[in-house]
Every structure is written in structure tokens, then in C-alpha cells.
């Protein structure tokens, strides 16, 4: 069983609540095992803080399997840390070296206000989905699932867009704090499927309007979102959303 031998310096953002100012605070950790996950390293830090009578660092996390999208640390200038295609909870200490200094901050975006320490409020994402990220079908109205064959390529493409976990790394990494990758992933998923067609253009208008109302920035095609997305959501989705948004002005019979 492992106790490890890594020594680390952490610089962690501490902020009591959204009314107070925050600052980076230094912590020294020793005997960290390379087999620990990044969050387990934080568990060790918190246990030490509690034993010293201090308040532990508050951070969002839940499944610790990379799928719930709750963990959200900005590590050494990158959301979810140095490894591509993983969330913070799936990052392991073997990705760091003995003696490293690691800076850990919350997501930074006007639409994601800090709640406490490393925890932010991402409810704007829910409101964008509530504005149109669905197919309007009540329970109990569905026909037999195989009455609607969908070509495999198309279904697979929809699935790839649907793999978004809503963590907000795309927003955190974008210099404009744009949510376009998140919003376009949902729009694409539904636009690629026959079930999504009846509301296709109305949906893109409602969701984009809500996205703007939440204070997310615009897209300037830097591609940082795609590069940092732990689920590899593609920029093509943004292109598809923009095409649909442009078309909607001509096609949609309803004004949203």
C-alpha cells in the first residue's frame, strides 16, 4: 500500500463567499503518492487543515469518474490540469513531479460567479438548456423506437455531441468566456437527429438568446475550448450552430 514520496507546494484560491475578496494561499504537502488522484491529494490537504483547526478548501466534485461534470479546478492555467481529455477527478499525481508548485484557481467567468474557494455557480448552463435544449415530447406519447431508423453515422455523430458533461471548462479557458461549445453541442445533438427537426430553428434561437442574456462572451475562433474539453467536443458543433442560427432568421416562422 502506498504512501508516496512527492513533496508539493500548492497555491490555492481561498475566498469566503461571493461578497469577499479572494487570494492565493500557499500550502506545503509531503508524502503524496503518484497513484493518488488530484482530488485525493486535496482530501489529504483538507484532512491536514481540519486537524490543524483550519477550514478545509471547498471544491465541487461528486462522481470522481469523469462523467458528472461537477469538478472544476483551473490548474496551472488550464481547466482540469495538464492532461488532455481528462477531468480534474481523473487527473493523477503521476502527471506531476516531486517538488512542483501547483496553482489551483476556480473557473473564471462573469457568468460563473465564485461561490466559495474553488466552487462556482454554473446554473447559467441549466437556464440555457431550459430555454430550448430538449425535444418537446411528453411521457407516454412515443412510437415504437425502431419505427424510426437512424443511420449509424448520424446517430454516432449525435452521440459524440451529446457526450458533453456540462463542466464549463470551455467557458473557463476562453478569453471571452464564451459558452458556444457547450451550447452548440446540445444544439448539434438534436439537430443531427430526425426527432429534433420540428423545433430545430426555434431551438437555436432560444438557446442563443439565453446564452447571451447570461453574459457569456462571443466566439473568436481561438479553439481553446476544443483543446481543453475533457470530452473532446468538436468545434464543428459551433459551425453547425452558427449555420442553423443564420438559417433560422429565414426559416423560422416564429419569432422567439
Amino acid at each position, binding site marked *: 500500500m*502506498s504512501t508516496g514520496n512527492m513533496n508539493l507546494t500548492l497555491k490555492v484560491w481561498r475566498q469566503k463567499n461571493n461578497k469577499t475578496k479572494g487570494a492565493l494561499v500557499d500550502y506545503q504537502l509531503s508524502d503524496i*503518492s503518484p497513484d493518488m488522484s488530484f482530488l485525493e491529494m486535496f482530501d489529504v490537504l483538507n484532512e491536514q487543515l481540519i486537524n490543524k483547526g483550519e477550514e478545509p478548501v*471547498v471544491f465541487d466534485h461528486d462522481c470522481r469518474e469523469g462523467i458528472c461534470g461537477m469538478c472544476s479546478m483551473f490548474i496551472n492555467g488550464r481547466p482540469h490540469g495538464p492532461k488532455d481529455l481528462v477531468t480534474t477527478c481523473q487527473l493523477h499525481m503521476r502527471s506531476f513531479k516531486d517538488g512542483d508548485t501547483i496553482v489551483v484557481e476556480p473557473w473564471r467567468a462573469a457568468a460563473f460567479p465564485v*461561490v466559495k474557494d474553488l466552487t462556482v*455557480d454554473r446554473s447559467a448552463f441549466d437556464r440555457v438548456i431550459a430555454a430550448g435544449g*430538449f425535444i418537446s415530447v411528453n*411521457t407516454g406519447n412515443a412510437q415504437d423506437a425502431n419505427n424510426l*431508423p437512424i443511420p449509424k453515422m448520424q446517430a454516432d455523430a449525435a452521440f459524440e455531441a451529446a457526450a458533453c458533461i456540462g463542466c464549463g471548462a470551455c467557458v473557463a479557458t476562453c478569453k471571452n468566456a464564451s459558452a458556444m461549445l457547450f451550447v452548440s453541442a446540445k444544439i448539434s445533438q438534436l439537430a443531427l437527429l430526425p426527432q429534433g427537426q420540428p423545433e430545430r430553428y426555434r431551438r437555436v434561437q432560444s438557446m442563443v438568446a439565453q446564452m447571451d442574456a447570461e453574459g457569456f462572451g462571443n466566439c473568436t475562433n481561438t479553439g481553446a475550448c476544443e483543446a481543453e474539453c475533457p470530452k473532446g467536443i468538436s468545434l464543428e458543433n459551433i459551425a453547425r450552430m452558427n449555420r442553423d442560427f443564420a438559417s433560422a432568421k429565414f426559416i423560422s416562422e416564429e419569432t422567439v
Partner: protein
Amino acid sequence: MSDINSNIPEGDLATKWTKYKSSVPLVNPANKRSIEVIVVGSGLAGASAAATLAEMGYKVKCFCFQDSPRRAHSIAAQGGINAAKNYQNDGDSVYRLFYDTIKGGDYRAREANVHRLAEVSANIIDQCVAQGVPLAREYGGLLDNRSFGGTQVQRTFYAAGQTGQQLLLGAYSALERQIGMGKVEMYTRHEMLEVVKIDGKARGIIARNLITGEIERHFGHAVVLGTGGYGNVFYLSTNAMGSNVTAAWKAHKQGAYFANPCYTQIHPTCIPVSGDHQSKLTLMSESLRNDGRIWVPKKKDDNRKASEIPEDERDYYLERRYPAFGNLVPRDVASRAAKERCDAGYGVGASKLAVYLDFKANTERYGRIEASKAGNHNPDKETCMRLGTAVIKEKYGNLFDMYAQITGENPYETPMRIYPAVHYTMGGLWVDYNLMTSVPGLYCTGEANFSDHGANRLGASALMQGLADGYFVLPYTIGAYLSKEISVKAIPTDHPAFVEAEERAKGILNTLINIKGTKSVDHFHKRLGHIMWEKCGMARNEQGLKEAIEEIRALRAEFWSNVRVPGSVDELNTELEKAGRVADFIELGELMCIDALNRNESCGGHFREEYQTEEGEALRDDENYAYVAAWEFKEGVNFELHKEELKFENIKVAQRSYK
């Protein structure tokens, strides 16, 4: 024998649900608008119920402790969802799904509930596809299926290794649609701390706003708990860090019986523990057993690498012991078989608490098929492996990536090392046929109730049950109760029952924060988990359980005198949240041991060492234990047993065999 009434409607099993559904009293649309329903939990069972009730016209409030309903732990379910569609024309039917589930549960589930589950299973797939859930498809455009343990048909629908995620996002989108329309009020980052009862009926909840620490009172004509399972009582499990029993336990303390708490599912294929720092365990989906073969070396303490052990020195022990089902035996059977091999000294890896899950044979087989499709009928081994790896990658890519990320090993090249881990809890709040607990007006859906899986759940049946309860069962059955409540006006929350419940909740929080002891919450949680795993885990015996009960009682006393909860009650305080949950887990742990001690037989996930066949299989005692053990909470953490007799009228009860 029964002293509780399950309210199963009369009539033939196959038509019972249809008839009942058509005769449940209705609430007219105008009345629905003034009837309020509280749904706690936003996973498959909660979100689907909240969305559907709102669609029907009820006023709904939905609560979750996460920052968004989309994060509920249903999202982590990997492998699939069962449905009796018979799309593969392999002889599947409602009856067969019903039969497999009853048998898989080791004849400890209620026939009527399970048959209803099998009946509505097909509707779930239809509903999800209509919502735009991207389930896996074949080249012809139709839905694909795969196999899961305990069945001989292919009835499992899936979306790569992310089926739970896709189904939950479907339910979440339905829920968000209702939120957008103002028909559901969503309360995220809220935790339910009490059930409010007025004149014996559930009439609301006390919840804590986790951001501000404020205690809130919420009225509902009825309350639905879809709050998930209690596997985290073991500290280490495949559950999310926040998964907890608190809502169900508070309901239990207000009179809801807790049924079969000792039935826990230990999943056979999880990534083994790597060190003391471990905070949770990660599942490798059962779907991997479609293509992975499980083995250990034939020689004890064999320290060679897997690749150095020749074929004839490997023991494919599941194929050897269970030739009919092989690697696809149910979870309880597979877990015990792994434990048996490791205990006997055949385990692999540094800890020797692991077995191999090996994809090589099937990778090669798939490669041969792919080569053949491309016209190469005599491919060399390397070509087979290359082409086959691509097939495996498409089927299980995300799981292989996750394994590599956690262990630092490449599972495409070396076999995975796996070991059983706590995964699911079949026990839960007792509910009748309507999914109502023993408290009138208090309902329970999904993993939080005990109803459908008996002593062991089959793979891909949790998603099925959560969505069946929320989309297709509760929205109908709740009408039987609410139709009698139409004259009840919303009760103001300054009613004494609300005041009293709020005082109870505040009292616990204040006590916890003022203990100011020396040990962290996690310290106590880990110790509880250790007791539970050692003495109420994969194998139990009378002596161990008696010891465990004493140890847990001592731990409870120590917790309440020496836990350290920093910070205050009126702020975001994650340690305080954990402390409340661990306090409830400690009480539950005791009840689990009491239940396991009471059940002098082995069945499904409950394996008492004293009760086994000569071949080491679970030995039931149908004469004395064919009942649901429903425990009533009594003052001072005591429990009284009530029994619901299980009658099997449509299935012949037999010793479960997968040979």
C-alpha cells in the same frame, strides 16, 4: 405471516397492471393545478417523476444537493438498460424478463412489481428515443443490443459506456423543459433534512440551502423520494462522493419502514484499491464481460506477468464452474467466485486482491471477422489484433481510457486487473404496489426503494427500474392518493409540524458543529466502512455481525462526542454536510448488521457463511425466510421487524443455478 399490506391488486399477473392503471382514480386538470408534489432527487427516478408529474399538470418542486440536476449519480451508469423488446428475435418476452429478474434476485422480490417493471420496460426505450437519447445503432439504422449477466438473450440497449449519462440527460432535458415553462420549481444545492408529517401524512420537507445554510420549509400534498442508494455506508464504493442515505433515513425515523437493508450488491468488475488514500472505487462495466474472459493463474502465488503465463496454466474459473453462463453469471455469483480464488491464494497484482479480465481472445476473434469482411480470409495474428483492437475500442473505448488513466496501465496490451466493490443497494424504503412507503403520502422511487431486485439486481436493470418508476408507474399510482386530497388546501408552513421539524433539523446541525472534537468526519466514515466491509460485506457470519453491531454502537457514541466540524452552520460548509450524512450512515450500518443477523440463510448479495451448499453456492431457506424484512424505527435507535410474505404463484421457486 404478513403484518403489512402491499396493496397488490387482485387478478391475473399478466393483466393486473393494465387493469389497475385503467381504474386508478384520476385528478381532473383544474384540481391538478392546485396540488403540489415535492420530488427529492434528480436522478433517473427523480427527474423522470418530476418531469412527468409536471407534464400531467401537478405543481412540482424538485430538490437536489448537486449544483445541477444533470449531475445526479445515475449519470455514471455505464453499461446499459434492459427492455423486453425482442428486437434480436432471440426469444425475449415480458415473461422472460420477469422470470430472469425474479430468479436473478434469488426469489426475494415481489412478483407483481417485477412483472409490471418488465411490462413497461419497452415503453422506456420508446420514450428515450423520442427525447433524442442517442442509443447505439446498427448499420441498418435500428437499435443495437448486447448481453448482460444472468440472461441468455440480448436485451440490453446502450450508448457506448455512457448509457446512464445519456438517459439522465434525456430525463434532465424533460425536467428543464418543465422548469422553463414554470411548472417545476428547481432547488439545486439543497439537501432534505426532515420529512414533515401532519395528521400522520407526509406534508412537506425541511431543506437546507447549502450555499447560505438557511433552513427552508416546503409544503407538498405528497412527497416523493428518489434519492438513490446507500452504498457509501461502506465508505469505499462506486457511488459518487455525495451519495447518501439521509433523506431516506430521515423518512425512516418518521415512520417509513426500511426493507431488506442487508441486501447489498458487490460488483465483480471494479478497479482494485491502490492505497490508503483511496476515496472511491471505479466500476468497469459489466458489459465488458461480453468480451472479456476472467481468469487467475492455476498456480498459487504466481508472480509472472499475465503475458508470461501460458494458456494451459490459466484457470478461467467462471467458465469452469458455470459452463452454461460462463463469464456472464450474475454479479453476486461472479463476486463471490473472485473472492474465493483470491482468498485461496490465486489473486494477482501487488495486493493479490485482483483477478484478470482479458480481452485478447475476443480481440483476435473480432479481428478475424473484420479481416474476412475485407476479403482477407487467412489473416496473421498481428493483423487480427490490430483490426480487433479497433472493434474493442469502439465498443468500450471510454472504459479502457478510464482504466488507463486510473491505473497507469494499457488495457489494450495487458489484461485489466479487477476486484469486487460495493456498487448498488437492493434494500431501501419499503413501498407498496403504489410505491408508497408506510407513511401515507410519502413515496419512494428508484434505488432508494427496495421493490424490484430482491436479493440481487441483474445488470442493466437499475436504469430500467429508475425510469419505470418515474415515467410510467408513480405518475399513475400517485393518483390513487392525490385524488382524495383535492379538497386539502396548501398548508401554511408556519403550522406547528413545520416548526417542530425545523427545530429537529437545526438541533442536529447545531449539535454537530458544537462538538468540536478531535477527529474529522472522514475519520469516522472510514472506520465505519472498514467494519461494514469486513463484517457485513461479501460474506457474513453470526459472530462477525454481533461484533460489528457492538463496534458500530461504540463508534456512534464516539462520533457524537469527538467529531470535529469546522466552520459555521450559516455558510457553505461541506464538512457539516458530510457529518450529517455520516451520522445517518452509522445508524443505518447497525440496522444492516441486525438485518443480516436476522436472515439465517444466504440469498443473492447476502451470503451467510453458515448457509451454503457443498459447492459453496448460496443456500436459501424458503420455509422460514421467504419474506421482506421491513424494519420500523423505534426511539433510541432500536428497530422492530415486520414481515411481508412473498408469494410465488407464477414462478416455480428453485435453487438458482447458472451451471
